[in-house]
């Protein structure tokens, strides 16, 4: 089974593996040429996402995300267009590591900052837990971690990329939908994907300049999704399960 899965990844997941090479390679070439530091970005190919939530689980395990929150998850929608057959549409969501992040200027104590490679990070030792950034993020990508009592969010797995590894969600992505790499390197897989595909970002009207791009994103899903909400189980103070309408 394992072998089959690897074979499957090898056959159709070259982008993912290519991105892994670009993570390690970019760092080297940057330091070798001394010209360009990597600028991490993600390209999510929605045509390949099967909504398995492997990324959601991998992120939780990798980053010890508490039970009532997510750093990333996959929203699933049913779209019915003009009375045609319903279609299931997946939308992996995570922090966009915006280049103009509204979460950053509001932080009263400069705990939120933009790292050298473009990641938007929180200095947990400095954060006062005021949640102003949680309010300011237009993507609901932040939350207050009730175990650490500070702001929490996706870090593009900073600890892993520093070690030349891919973010856990990308590493785990079964369908090869999540692709990660250096947007400054024109030869990286993600740069090529951006060149060769029509891509969009979430909530472009917010002018946040996201670094997470989507291939095949339906217009009706790029903002606040009007429509019927999923059943939301009660988010009790003592959370037993994830508040996900699975």
């Amino acid at each position, binding site marked *: 089974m394992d072998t089959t899965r690897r074979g499957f990844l090898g056959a159709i997941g070259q982008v993912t593996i290519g991105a892994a090479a670009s993570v390690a390679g970019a760092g080297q070439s940057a330091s070798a040429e001394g010209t360009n530091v990597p600028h991490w970005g993600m390209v999510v190919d929605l045509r390949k996402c099967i*909504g398995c939530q492997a990324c959601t689980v991998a992120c939780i395990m990798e980053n010890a995300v508490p039970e*009532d929150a*997510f750093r990333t998850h*996959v*929203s*699933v*929608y049913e*779209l*019915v*267009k*003009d*009375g045609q057959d319903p279609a*299931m549409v997946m939308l992996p*969501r995570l922090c966009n590591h915006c280049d103009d992040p*509204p979460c950053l*200027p*509001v*932080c*009263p*104590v*400069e*705990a939120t900052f933009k790292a050298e490679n473009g990641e938007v990070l929180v200095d947990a030792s*400095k*954060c*006062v*837990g*005021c*949640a*102003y950034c*949680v*309010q*300011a*993020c*237009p*993507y*609901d990508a932040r*939350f*207050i971690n009730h175990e650490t*009592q*500070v702001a929490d969010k996706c870090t593009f797995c900073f600890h892993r990329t520093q070690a030349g590894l891919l973010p856990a969600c990308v590493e785990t992505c079964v369908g090869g939908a999540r692709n990660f790499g250096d947007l400054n390197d024109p030869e990286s897989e993600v740069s090529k994907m951006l060149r060769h595909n029509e891509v969009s970002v*979430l*909530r472009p009207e*917010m002018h946040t300049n996201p670094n997470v791009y989507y291939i095949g994103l339906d217009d*009706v*899903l790029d*903002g*606040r*999704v*009007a*429509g*019927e*909400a*999923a059943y*939301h189980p009660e*988010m009790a*103070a003592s959370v037993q399960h994830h*508040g*996900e*309408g*699975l």
Partner: protein
Amino acid sequence: METQVHELVGAVHDAAWQPWAVQYFFLIAMSVTALLMALPAFVFGKSTDLRAARLALMVAVTTGITAPIALLADLHQPFRFWEFFVYTHKSSWMAWGAWIVPSYVALMLLFAWAIHRPEFHRMGQDEWRFAWLFRLFSLGGAANGFARPLGVLAGIAALGILVYTGSEVMVVRARPLWNTPFLPLQFAATGVVGALGVMLILERMLCRDGALEATLNRRLALALALVATLGGTWFAVAISGLSPVHTEALASVAGFPVWQQIALWGAASVAIPFVLALTLPRNTGVLTGLIAIHAAWMFRWTVFMGGQAVPKVGSGLYDALMPTGLAGLMGVIGTFGLWVFLMIVYTTFVPWTDATPPAHTSDQAPRKSASPQEI
């Protein structure tokens, strides 16, 4: 092309700003507006307004002490509050607020102390059990000519509070309901309504002077008219499309029946006390006062908890609008409890009925206490 969307899997985001935040914005708005209402009599010598000003100062002091405690409680790391002063991030309104709030509270308390200093001094001279305490309070003197500049400075800090609290919420583009230029004005106007509501209740409990009740009721009617005008204009610019941010704010909630009920409830809580205060300014103070306090509080609850119930990317509404769990309610009950306690302490220990404008520098001898008619 008609597209129907059903969310099958979506994350829920609970409110990051808890009911403590509602309490803070409610109390601080009442404190600063009450202080501004106390200044004409105490700083600018408008003696006809003295009795109302005494009540206003009582509201300013008691809510002004309670508010920052509620604010601190809303921080998830309250013991790191010192970082606000070490790492001030100039682009953040909250960072500015961290400097403005303590300045306001300190100046307001100093001003209130200065206004009462001659009486503290006098009570320290009498032969009674707590005389020593009042000698301490008065710092051994009765002079209070400096109360006027202190009042002016406290007034400036109060305006600073109105600007920062309004702007802090208004700049959040991610929440359409907050991101409207009307919001700071609405916070200020409903703050006046809340402060007058409390003053009316206090008047009924402590003074029972029909003329003062009528005066306060007339002022309340004026403030409610302002709130209604702001609300009506908000709605008009939103529905006409004149202001896209207001249109978006309205659109973010308009389709939900619960919001239609809130709008009706809000309109009733402005209209009912307005009509009562205008037509029956005497003997309705308790009712108009209570409804006014409710209106000011509910406006903030709706803006903060209701605003956080609107998903930024998901569908439907989250549950934040209704108070869930004991923890949230404890915030509300706890702050109200502290406020009532401070009110009791104030009316017991502060000679508030004798508060008068400061003497001019040439006339700083301790004054005799006011006659009962003046109270």
